[in-house]
């Protein structure tokens, strides 16, 4: 009697899972692939309006514009997956860019001299700034958005202090080769960025730290109850993000040949827009660096496409802002969220 009861119950459960299996994934799969479909649709639309859009030359332009933004987006993706937010990128990039330029110039001004040491130094600096950021957030128990926003302003101030309001010009041809030397139509920095993306993907999928990001974002209390050191994971996340911001700073300087206190300007909006549009959930636990890539490409394709089809550039920010709202609306199952703060 009891066995037959449990059998029917078991069958009931299996049946329930099956109906779920039929319904759920369709929505989930759709949400998962939506950003990529949007990207493809954008390319098709822009090409239809102006065929010049679909050219290697133009794709190269898009790729160059995307490179620093991709690094920032990857960094902030780790943070958002943890369920936090990092708004310090503009300050971190400014400091990293200026410090890099300062030492690069004073140690010889060319990659072929000891000045190359400035590169690892900058990455280390990014990690330290991220570490500070994380420690302020975790030890002082300040919400991450506030801690990082404040640290970002400190960074910008610091950058002005370093540059005294001047610009550092980097004219080293070897370093500028990042953007001038092309392989298969794309500059070398694009390949370096893709390599960084692969590293980020490896961290995300194949390391303890990456798994812990998802655990903290998916259920912080659970992660704590499973014996994870949540605070350590958070600090490590901010450190890792800092390294990627430093990479962004290097690419940004390489791209323009200039380091100044506003080197980081606009990266906050672009990177967070990209990450969200790419399908990383703001409440944590969902998405990853591939979403960041797709998001960055969507944002830059729109920026580029609007220029190519001749729309005024002041429309671009408006369109991007609108897109963020659409992305969040589409990706959120809002029935499950009763109140939004």
């Amino acid at each position: 009697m009891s066995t037959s009861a449990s059998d029917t119950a078991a069958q009931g459960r299996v049946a329930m899972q099956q109906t779920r299996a039929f319904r759920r994934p369709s929505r989930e799969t759709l949400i998962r692939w939506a950003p990529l479909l949007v990207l493809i649709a954008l390319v098709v639309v822009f090409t239809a309006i102006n065929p010049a859009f679909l050219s290697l030359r133009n794709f190269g332009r898009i790729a160059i514009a995307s490179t620093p933004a991709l690094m920032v987006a990857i960094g902030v993706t780790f943070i958002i997956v943890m369920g936090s937010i990092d708004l310090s990128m503009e300050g971190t990039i400014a400091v990293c860019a200026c410090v890099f330029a300062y030492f690069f110039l004073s140690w010889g001004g060319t990659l072929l001299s000891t000045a190359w040491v400035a590169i690892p130094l900058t990455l280390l600096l990014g990690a330290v700034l991220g570490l500070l950021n994380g420690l302020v957030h975790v030890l002082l128990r300040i919400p991450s958005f506030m801690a990082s926003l404040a640290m970002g302003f400190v960074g910008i101030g610091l950058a002005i202090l370093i540059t005294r309001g001047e610009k550092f010009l980097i004219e080293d041809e070897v370093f500028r080769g990042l953007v001038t030397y092309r392989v298969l139509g794309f500059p070398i920095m694009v390949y370096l960025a893709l390599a960084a993306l692969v590293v980020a993907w490896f961290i995300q999928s194949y390391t303890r730290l990456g798994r812990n990001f998802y655990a903290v974002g998916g259920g912080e209390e659970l992660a704590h109850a499973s014996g994870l050191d949540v605070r350590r994971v958070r600090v490590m996340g901010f450190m890792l993000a800092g390294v990627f911001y430093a990479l962004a700073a290097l690419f940004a300087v390489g791209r323009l040949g200039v380091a100044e206190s506003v080197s980081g300007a606009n990266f906050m909006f672009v990177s967070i827009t990209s990450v969200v549009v790419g399908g990383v959930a703001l409440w944590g636990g969902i998405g990853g660096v591939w979403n960041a890539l797709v998001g960055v490409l969507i944002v830059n394709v729109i920026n580029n496409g609007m220029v190519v089809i001749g729309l005024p550039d002041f429309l671009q920010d408006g369109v991007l802002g609108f897109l963020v709202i659409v992305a969040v609306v589409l990706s959120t199952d809002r029935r499950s969220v009763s109140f939004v703060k």
Partner: protein
Amino acid sequence: MYALQKVDKKFPGVHALKAIDFQVGRGEIVGLVGENGAGKSTLMKVIYGAYQPDGGQILVDGKSVRFANPRQAMERGIGMVFQEQSLIANLTVMENIFLGYEQQFVRWGVINWREMAEAARHQLAKVKLDIDPATVTSSLSFAQRQLVELAKVLTLEERVEGHLVILLDEPTSVLSSEEVQLLFRLIRELTARASFIFVSHRMDEVMEISDRIYVLKDGQVVDVVSRGGSSAETIQHKMVGRNVNKEYYREQRQKPFDSSRTLVELDGVSLPGRVTDISLKLHAGEVLCIVGTEGSGREAILRTIYGMRTPVEGRVLIKGQEVTSFSPRTAASLGVGYVPRERKIEGIVAGMSVYENMTLSQLGRHSSGGVLKLAEEKALARDWIKRLSIKAHSEHADCGNLSGGNQQKVVLAKWRSGGSDIMLLDHPTRGLDIGAKEDVYEMIRDMSDAAVGIVLVADTLEEAIGLAHTIIVVKDGRIQKTFGATSGVKPTPFDLLHHMI
């Protein structure tokens, strides 16, 4: 004047209310008692409009009504005084009293505070509370807040035509005995204007205040007792009386435990708050049940062993080693596993796959230099999916999509696969259907056979009795009595209840 007829309520896997007939007369005080899980809170939610019944009807003054939400119920004079106080702590008393009903004081879009204070004072007078209505609620005592809550519900008098029905959910749980008497006097005076439904687990209080008592068990009204018509003991018998199916709890598989190996020892442990002087021992292969009412300190004891609470006094020894730093990390590394009651919050990460959930607490073992050994993780998950017959299409299945029973198995596998030999189970069968419950009982016996020590906070008394070797009864944070409960000498639910309330 207020009645439920054949009211039915079902949730997935649970038939929470079965054809409930319930009546409240004008000016009557009706008691409602039942064990945890008997359906009291569901019934209350139906009454104050938070749930809509699936069958039967609700009659107010003989007319059938249907409430889509609590506000509609309030408009018909049915108000609820919540157990977890529902006042917003950072607002003033008067703002709380008229929350959502400020419109009456608004002139030209501006609130007339003086008028609101006046009206609030009038409400507070009804509950004989002499405080300034502009006091911020957080500065009041619990007893005062309880009265403000009652005053808030009493505003219905002015708003609603006719008689009121007021639900009181465990209103005395935070009150001293003088305050309880004060509250009771007030309730009796107010019966001129309202009827009351009084829900409490304190049998003496229910018997003292109620004109009639409804006894609820397994979603059914098993008896209605008039004042003086029955003793507390008879009512308690009716609350729990049920044939315990030995087979259901796998009693035939209960074996003696190994009393020579002590896994956990609590020695005079006191926690901040109510829990005082707890001493207990858990042996290898033993199932130790902690029973007590909600808030008696059962969970706190569990959480102390897991390092989530730090004692202010006493010692905790795990496998003979004294715990000095209390954190889940330390406990987990000593082989303690914790299956929390809130599966969704502390048990599994929805969105992560089965294998990711299983290895979450032991990533150190499945990685080298920070790089994960994915193949090893997946193999382990496949093995445990088979061992516990978890119904998931593969180790990649999203844990959030599994049924409750299978999620519970994943949580158990998480700890067992990591070699935990002390398991703390907090309501492991809550919200599971019967088949899944039996699976969990089966697993508990399997673990005992493997010399795992288990501390269990069970969902019902029968479950505790059926599964336990030893039962500890706690009340108000103290151990009242310890029962041996090996097969053949099991105490009855009534024996336990006697010490619980």
